[in-house]
C-alpha cells in the first residue's frame, strides 16, 4: 500500500524538472553605432599653416565622433545588460 502511495506521488510529479524554454531575443544594436572609426586624416605635403590646421580640426572632430560612438556603445551595453538581468 505504501509503495503504491509513493508511486502515485512520483507519477503526480511527472516531468516537473523541465526548464521553461522561453528566451529573450538578442537586441539589435543602434544603426548609428555600426560604423567603424576611421583612421585620422593625413596632411597633404604643404607649407601652408591653414591647410595643416584644417586637417587638425578635421581629426579632432573625427576623434569626438568616434568617442561619441564608443561612449554610446558602453551606455547601450550597460542598459541592455540591466534589462536582460531583470528577466530572471
Amino acid at each position, binding site marked *: 500500500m505504501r509503495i503504491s502511495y509513493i508511486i502515485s506521488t512520483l507519477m503526480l510529479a511527472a*516531468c516537473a524538472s523541465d526548464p521553461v524554454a*522561453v528566451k529573450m531575443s538578442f537586441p539589435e544594436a*543602434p544603426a548609428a*553605432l555600426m560604423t567603424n572609426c576611421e583612421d*585620422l586624416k593625413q596632411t597633404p605635403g604643404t*607649407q601652408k599653416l591653414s591647410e595643416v590646421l*584644417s586637417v*587638425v580640426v578635421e581629426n579632432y572632430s573625427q576623434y569626438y565622433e568616434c568617442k561619441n560612438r564608443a561612449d554610446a556603445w558602453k551606455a547601450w551595453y550597460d542598459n541592455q545588460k540591466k534589462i*536582460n538581468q531583470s528577466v530572471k
Partner: protein
Amino acid sequence: MFSWLIEVFIFLLPTWVWPCMAVLGIAGYALSGLLATVPQLKGHGLAVKLACAAMIFIGIFMYGGAGVAEIYQARVQELQNKIAVAEQASKDATHEVQTRVVTHTKIIRKTKTEYLNRIQVVEKQLDAECPGLALDVVDILNKAARNPFSDYNQ
C-alpha cells in the same frame, strides 16, 4: 517520442478525464472480484484487474502530467510577459542611444564646420604670418596621426 505523445494527450484532452479514468479503474478493480461469481466471466477476472490497474496508473500519471503542464504553461506565460516588457524596454533604450548619437554627431560636425570656417576667414593672414612651414611639421603630424595597427589589420 514518449514524452511528446504524453504532451499531445495532455493538451488534447481536458484535465478532468484523467481523475475520472483513475476512479473508473479503482471502481473496476474493486468490482472485478464480482466477476468470479459469474461462471461465464470467471476466467477474465485477472485481465480485467490488469486493465483496471493500468487505467489507475495511467489516470494518476496523466493527471500529474496535466497539473505539471498547467504550472509549466503559467510559468511560460509569466516569462513571455516579462520578456515582452523587457524587449520593449530594450527597443526604447536602443532608440534613445540612436537618437543621442545622431544628435551629438550633428553638434560635433557643426562645431567642425564652425572652426573650418574660422580658418577660411584667417587663411590668408595665417599663411602670410607663417610662410614656408617646415616640411618636418607635416611629417611629424602625419606620422603621429597614422594608425600604428594599420599594417597589422589587413
